[in-house]
């Protein structure tokens, strides 16, 4: 009874999260093999049509919250697809609102002196796309980003669950002879724990 329940949890969580888990495993290969996947980003610049209502630009500050108060109107106006992430002020007075999504970075660059604006879109190739998919995170932005972060947490919990439920399933399945399992589990666990202890104590 308990065995069946654990087996179903193990199986059903894998089926439910399969795409996300495979995305993380596949993108890890791309990240570990950067030389195999060269990347040539393409940048396009579009000039915005003025006049721009640059709201109290000097009071925006340099933090995310300040930029976030006014970014929504520009995101709609220029149909930007991506999550607003940060705000950068340059020494010469220009300032950027920076949006990102996996595979692309979009900068809304304001030139307060000339009341002009550029939409700078940098589209990356496959390697960067996979890297960003792997590293896209946090409960920030609109609903799609919140769902993404939820799936990330579920995938992380599933990894822990697979390990624990797998051990329990093995323990039941191989009740007659667990010698091989103890050797395999013990060597993997000992190596992992040994690595942690080694890294904590090595000079």
């Amino acid at each position, binding site marked *: 009874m308990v065995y069946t329940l654990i087996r179903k949890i193990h199986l059903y969580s894998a089926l439910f999260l399969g795409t996300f888990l495979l995305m993380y495993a596949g993108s890890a290969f791309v990240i570990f093999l950067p030389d195999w996947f060269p990347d040539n980003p393409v940048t396009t610049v579009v000039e915005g049509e003025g006049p721009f209502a640059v709201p109290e630009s000097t009071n925006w500050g340099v933090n995310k919250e300040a930029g976030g108060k006014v970014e929504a109107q520009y995101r709609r106006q220029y149909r930007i697809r991506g999550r607003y992430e940060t705000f950068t002020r340059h020494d010469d007075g220009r300032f950027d609102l920076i949006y990102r999504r996996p595979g692309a970075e979009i900068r809304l660059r304001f030139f307060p002196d000339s009341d002009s604006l550029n939409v700078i879109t940098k589209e990356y190739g496959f390697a960067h796309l996979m890297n960003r998919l792997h590293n896209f995170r946090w409960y920030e932005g609109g609903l799609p980003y919140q769902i993404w972060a939820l799936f990330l947490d579920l995938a992380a919990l599933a990894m822990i669950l697979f390990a624990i439920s797998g051990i329990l399933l093995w323990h039941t399945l191989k009740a007659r002879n667990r010698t091989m399992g103890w050797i395999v589990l013990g060597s993997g666990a000992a190596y992992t724990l040994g690595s942690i202890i080694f*890294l904590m104590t090595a000079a």
Partner: protein
Amino acid sequence: MRKLLLDIHLYLGLFCAGYFIIFGVSSIGYNRHWDPIAEKSTVERTITPPSNLDLSATALAVRDSLGLFGQVVGWTLKETEEGITFRVGRPGRSYTVSLNSATGRAHIDVSTYGLFDLISGLHHTGFVPGTLWGWTWGLYAWTAMLTFLVAVGLGIYFWWARVPERRVGFWLLGVGSGGSLILILYMIV
């Protein structure tokens, strides 16, 4: 045949269980704004400065002369008025090295991180050149990734063989995996 495949699924999973737990725990941390907490200390050492090497090779030689292990972080590598500065990083610890090329005096700022940061560091560590542990960890990480792919493939095979569970499985596959596929496409297209 099915028994053999089940044993492969089982034993590969058991061997990599520790890695999967590290992966899961660190991923939960990555999904939050977690600031690493470091304990700082300083060490002064004198070495024989390497000569006739380019900047990158000099950093590697200095790292080895100081007995440090970890990867030289490329973007931190700079020439200074006195000599060279760079950072060496590995899970759980980082070293900022400033070497005076004339005297051979090395000033090392050591940052030692806690257990959670060390585990997070292991998440994105593959092969670390120059150390036996770094080589074995890279091998273990690759084994775990391949194991994961094999386990998913075999898991689907085992599920398909159980006819009564196909219907529920299809629903979960459609709603969860299908939904997340649409979400991934929404993000990138």
